[in-house]
């Protein structure tokens, strides 16, 4: 059974239909990559899973449980974490406060905190700094750290490499590889090289519909398919 199933999901934003028919199976474990051009519906897919936009018709099943009509907070309590495109860090809060807010009981598990320090040493350095003062890369680290401060069954990450320096992107890739050993990541990405280095399974969304799904190895080998589904000229 898949960890996450999207069935004929359709989502409207206001009067605009953004997702027309998204059907997708995300298996448990590893990194599942959702690729697509700008405006194809990647972010809307993640937000629909989190209940931030309501899909109708269609359904979202998580571990077999229908979460389509659930409140975002209740979905999050099923151990689903969300790292949005804009990172969603709270600028007026310190790094520590941002992280403690994401803990279930308001206190840190020392083992997990140590792991976060190892993955993202900058967060320990700027522990008492307000998040607005962090660089873009550090904010992204904080956003990801917040997603893994507690054990999660699924982490939804929206374009984590956007606007980041290559060195930070490499560090982020290493972190995701380690995180994916214990959890499932549904990664939305436009940076194909980054996605290719991480993904085991993948899908491409185009104009609100899943246009292709399969293994990343097969997709990476098929340049004609990549051109057709991802290139700007197509």
């Amino acid at each position, binding site marked *: 059974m898949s960890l996450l199933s999207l069935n004929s999901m359709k989502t409207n934003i206001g009067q605009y239909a953004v997702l027309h028919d998204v059907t997708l199976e995300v298996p448990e474990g590893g990194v599942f990559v959702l690729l697509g051009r700008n405006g194809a519906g990647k972010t809307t897919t993640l937000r629909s899973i989190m209940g931030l936009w309501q899909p109708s018709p269609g359904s979202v099943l998580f571990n077999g449980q229908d979460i389509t009509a659930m409140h*975002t907070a209740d979905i999050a309590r099923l151990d689903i974490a969300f790292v949005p495109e804009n990172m*969603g860090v709270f*600028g007026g809060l310190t790094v520590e*406060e941002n992280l403690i807010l994401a803990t279930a009981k308001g206190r840190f598990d020392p083992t997990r905190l140590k792991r976060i320090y190892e993955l993202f040493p900058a967060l320990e350095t700027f522990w008492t700094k307000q998040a607005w003062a962090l660089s873009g890369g550090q904010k992204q680290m904080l956003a990801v750290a917040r997603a893994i401060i507690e054990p999660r069954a699924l982490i939804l990450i929206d374009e984590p490499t956007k606007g980041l320096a290559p060195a930070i992107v490499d560090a982020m890739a290493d972190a995701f590889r380690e995180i994916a050993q214990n959890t499932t990541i549904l990664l939305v990405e436009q940076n194909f090289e980054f996605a290719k280095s991480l993904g085991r399974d993948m899908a491409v969304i185009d104009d609100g519909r899943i246009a292709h799904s399969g293994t990343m190895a097969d997709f990476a080998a098929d340049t004609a398919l990549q051109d057709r589904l991802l290139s700007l000229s197509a």
Partner: protein
Amino acid sequence: MQQINDFAGRLGGVYLLPVVVAALAFVMIGAPSSWVTLTVAGLAMGMMIFLMASGLSLVFGLMDVLNFGHSAFVSFGAFIAASVLAWLSGWLEADAVSLNIAALFLAFGAAILFGLVAGWFFETVIVKPVYKDHLRQILITMGALIVAEQMILAIWGGTPVSVPRPEFLEGSLLIGDITIEIYRIFAFLLGLGVYAALYLTLNRTRIGLLIRAGVENREMVEALGFRVDRLFVAVFMLGSALAALGGAMWAGYETLITPALGAEMMIVVFIVVIIGGLGSIQGTLLGAIMVGLMANYIGYLAPKLALASNMILMVAILLWRPNGLKPAAK
């Protein structure tokens, strides 16, 4: 210019503003005793306005709700406290300070209790159906304010109601040729106490952390597993209770209140929230103190400008800082 800004920042930044205004007023007023009296009056007035405005600022910041009915809680708080004080007039006139204090705190307690219950009702019945629709929020909450005013008229009548003060808060302190009303000192200290409690709650507790985070990014707080709508009801109730307490304090300050009190205070409260910066308790305190000080100084120096002092202050601050003095980070 940058060097001036950096220097001002090191000295306290915008928090320095009331000090600068007070120093300028000192030079312009000339007489130190008048200056002290006006400054204490301004600080006391500012603290009472802070009580009324702090809840509105959080509600505005957290849920983007324009509640023009907020000052109805101020009115009801004032009238309920006045009624309780009148009912306990025997205690107020007693020589025993303990009875004086008991009467005062029962009056405040009644106002706060009303604020909590009415806040819950107002949020659930009136505000909830119009989330995310500013035009309807303005219309329905203005309507609610009018209904509240009419209810006050029906219950307490149209004639001004006099508010008895406890014996121990009557009179003034005389220090040399400086006269300071005891009630003003009390209002200042109570406001300071409420500010300290709010500050500690917002900065040292998990619920405070959630409120601060929710003001910045409500959606993300929900994505972390917290029901912001439930948090909002609690904040709304707290804000309404603080407004009612502010109204009760104001009633004792004015000693004569009319049903138009809410509508009169609404403008001041909104000015404070706007110049302070939305969603920020520190900003609201700063804005309230600025309004209190300016009203007293201008009332003394240029009485004809007194009515316009709040507007002039708001225009000047918004020209300098369009988001207010100390807005919550967004």
